[in-house]
């Protein structure tokens, strides 16, 4: 199958408006003849479900949580970018486009990214109209702050809870449509497979998490908005329930999985304390607006700090290395995430890390508190400081935070074209579960932007084109594919439930996480990745022999849910390693030790790797087949990224 991204021809700034005109429309009275399935109720899913229902389509919306409001978008802290240029500081749609392409280390599509920047301004208008209480200045207008990888202030925020406020806005729009009867909501319902009829996605198979019932649902199209796969690393900033299952099962039904090795390791997270830990907590990137990152200049001082012989405040100014400010004077503490993470790791690797484990650097607010006063700092970051205190029992107003990189976001995901359609017609992917807009590294405050862009402003246009093409004829649920897919799911679950070995699913998950972090984390090598591949294969075989899955299908069964998700993570882990092995260059978050500049920055190989890797599933335990989508740059010049 050829990979046609369907990027419209013509000048960058005209692509989307021209394309919108060329898309077919479904006339208003015909829209109610179409049923659309939306899986996931985060920013992308909730905004898409609400917007499509407003247009008149009948929407069925699904989430595994007990309420659509719990989707993990709720936890996003820092903010959302938009090219409003309210600050008169030189921002524009083109600059947001450029920053995003550069931030992604030239591994994203120009057309998609430009559209994202273009609709970013509409998102803010929409959210304000819904009653989202963004931060404001005393004059009553919207406030902005800066985020990494840009030199303008274009980030809109609601204290440290922007994701919560945006999601509750989308949730309220969804609620309105539920009330009007245009959306039927299924909570505690997990999608376990896609039904493909004659090559088109026509429905899904779900498990009711309260009763265990396996059900089928039909629709003219299936939209996945099921989030990222960061939990493949076991420890990440994702919610415990965040999983790849919906996307992975779609992959196994034919949808290509793109750039799986592109994962984002976020520089400012609370360091790991021990094996009991179930997740990691992010400290928002916005803190780097006022916090200064440093490590002690010498290994000796670091060791004293590790042994708690001295405290951070006892380290004299001249004995501190503000390494980001030193190495990147023009961006300073606000370099992109991949750069900041690698530098923190480098400090720890050199023995200059702090904290009892030595795997941490400082994020220091002393200067900001002196400059702005404690009250101002509290008003800006209070909830983050409180979170830090709860977890570490240390007061960040009095001593610097200890931070270390942690898995946060996945740029890879299901391959989609410009219309957000996967290569399986009728199957769409939005938000973090697709791959399309962030290249090899996502800039801060751009995930919320992309989720809402896809859901509010892209899919309502592009989906109509497909629906108009296939026509409103009812989906035939008597087609054997529905029953067959349901039986496949039942058989798979029974296989899991039959596992009565001696090792818990959580132990397998933790082990997988160790392998991924060690060999497919912040620094990757040919040798390490090859080893990881073998280890994952062994882990998979062992899982299907010795795992323990308690309970039955016909009841609430968290063990069964987790087992299915971990089984999928193991398979995905192997594909990530395959992809990382194949990409013999460094770019953004994908850092191959063999490919770096003299200064230790990621060194791309544009001649050989300026493409999207899209992997095709070919059968259980078989190597996946690689398809390449060439990336064509007509507007920006590919250069070595520099934040000096």
């Amino acid at each position, binding site marked *: 199958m050829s990979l046609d991204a369907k990027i419209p021809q013509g000048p960058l700034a005209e692509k989307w408006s021209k394309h919108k005109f060329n898309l077919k429309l479904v006339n208003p009275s015909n829209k109610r003849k179409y049923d659309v399935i939306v899986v996931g109720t985060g920013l992308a899913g909730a905004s898409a479900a609400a*917007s499509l229902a*407003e247009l008149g389509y009948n929407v069925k919306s699904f989430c595994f*949580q*007990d*309420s*659509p*409001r*719990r989707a*993990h978008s*709720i*936890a996003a802290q820092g903010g959302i970018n938009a090219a409003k240029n309210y600050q008169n500081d030189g921002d524009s749609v083109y600059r947001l486009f450029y920053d995003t392409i550069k931030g992604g280390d030239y591994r994203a599509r120009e057309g998609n990214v430009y559209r994202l920047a273009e609709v970013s301004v509409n998102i803010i*208008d*929409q*959210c*304000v*109209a*819904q*009653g989202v*209480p*963004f*931060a*404001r*200045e005393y*004059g*009553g*207008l919207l406030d902005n702050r800066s985020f990494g990888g840009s030199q303008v202030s274009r980030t809109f925020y*609601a204290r440290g*809870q922007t994701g*919560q*406020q945006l999601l*509750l806005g989308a949730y*309220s*729009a969804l*609620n309105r449509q*539920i*009330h*009007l009867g245009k959306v039927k909501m299924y*909570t505690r319902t997990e999608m376990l497979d896609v039904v493909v009829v004659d090559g088109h996605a026509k429905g899904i198979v779900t498990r009711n998490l309260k009763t265990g019932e396996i059900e089928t649902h039909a629709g003219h199209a299936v939209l996945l908005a099921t989030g990222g796969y960061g939990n493949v690393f076991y420890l990440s900033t994702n*919610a*415990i*329930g965040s999983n790849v299952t919906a996307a992975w099962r779609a992959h196994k039904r034919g949808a290509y999985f793109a750039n799986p090795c592109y994962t984002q390791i976020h520089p400012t997270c609370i360091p790991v304390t021990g094996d*009991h830990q*179930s997740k990691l*907590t992010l400290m928002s990137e916005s803190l780097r607006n006022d916090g200064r990152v440093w490590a002690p200049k010498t290994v000796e001082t670091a060791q004293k700090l590790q042994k708690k012989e001295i405290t951070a405040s006892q380290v004299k100014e001249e004995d501190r290395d503000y390494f980001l400010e030193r190495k990147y004077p023009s961006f300073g503490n606000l370099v992109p995430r991949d750069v900041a993470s690698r530098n923190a790791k480098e400090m720890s690797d050199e023995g200059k890390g702090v904290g009892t484990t030595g795997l941490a650097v400082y994020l220091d607010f002393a200067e900001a508190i002196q400059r702005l006063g404690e009250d101002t700092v509290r008003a800006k970051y209070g909830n983050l400081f*409180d*979170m830090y205190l*709860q*977890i570490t*029992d240390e007061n960040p107003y009095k001593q610097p935070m200890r931070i270390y990189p942690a898995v946060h976001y996945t740029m890879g995901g299901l391959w989609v074209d410009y219309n957000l359609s996967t290569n399986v017609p009728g199957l769409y992917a939005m938000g973090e579960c697709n791959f399309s807009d962030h290249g090899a590294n996502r800039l801060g405050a751009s995930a919320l932007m992309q989720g809402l862009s896809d859901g*509010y402003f892209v899919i*309502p246009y592009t989906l109509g084109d497909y629906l108009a093409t296939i026509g409103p004829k009812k989906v035939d649920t008597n087609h054997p594919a529905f029953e067959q897919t349901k039986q496949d799911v039942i058989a798979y679950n029974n296989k899991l439930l039959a596992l*009565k070995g001696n090792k*818990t699913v*959580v*132990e397998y998950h933790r082990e997988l996480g160790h392998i991924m972090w060690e060999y497919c984390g912040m620094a990757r090598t040919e040798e390490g990745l090859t080893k990881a591949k073998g280890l994952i294969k062994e882990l998979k075989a062992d899982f299907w022999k010795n795992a*323990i899955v*308690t309970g039955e299908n016909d*009841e*609430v069964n*968290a063990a069964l849910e987790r087992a299915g998700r971990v089984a999928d993570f193991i398979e995905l882990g192997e594909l990530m390693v395959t992809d990382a092995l194949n990409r013999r260059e460094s770019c953004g978050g994908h850092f191959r030790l063999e490919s770096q500049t003299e200064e230790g920055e990621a060194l791309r190989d544009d001649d050989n790797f300026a493409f999207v890797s899209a992997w095709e599933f070919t059968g259980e335990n078989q190597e996946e087949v690689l398809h390449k989508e060439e990336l064509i740059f007509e507007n920006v010049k590919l250069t070595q990224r520099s934040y000096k």
Partner: protein
Amino acid sequence: MSGHMNLTLKVWRQKNTQAPGKFVTYKAENISPDMSFLEMLDVVNESLTRKNEEPIYFDHDCREGICGSCSLYINGHPHGPKKAITTCQLHMRTFSDGETITIEPWRSAAFPIVKDLATDRSAFDRIQQAGGYVSVNTGGVPDANVMPIPKVIADEAFNSATCIGCGACVAACKNASAMLFTSAKITQLGLLPQGQPERYSRVQAMVAQMDAEGFGNCTNTGACEAECPKEITLNNIAFMNNDFFSAKLFREEHAHDHSGGE
């Protein structure tokens, strides 16, 4: 930092909504004070799993105090003994070695137990669906800066909007009242200019749904405010009552009715 702890847990176990429940005693051994409360339960569940016994079921997801999934009535307090945090943010350093901890689900007729410690809080969703929104469609809205909003108003609206919908207010209230939860959304939208057109119909619709779900009334005890992990204040209830009475006295004609479609 103290050493590891051994604890006794008395946990409510209930197979499903219909089945009778009971307390079962478990040992939680070798617990690090750095663990969160839910990580302590993870340890217990891992040992139950290894014995092929059914793990304790509880709702949880983000584990950073924002999704509102986790609940648990711990030693007589929703989200445990500490103020202004959720159960997932409660760390074991709050407890001492040898302590007995009682863990129950939220208790309210409007929150039926799903299993063990998890309850069905969909009544909260239905209250929101009754009117917790501004009726605007996607697209066609004015520029975000067209309407300035005084910072103090925006900040107050934000404070109300931080409700995570966990249900601790209901669990804390002797009347199982949902007025703090309901009033938080009414206040957020009632304060903002965007919420004005539907202000009085919204309050009526949401209060009617709240009553229909079987939640009790407020008798100004203040337990909800004291236990709310996001420190939503009783002022929200006052705001709601004020709007509700205004609507009932003068604005009956604005009753929220979508039956005719929009």
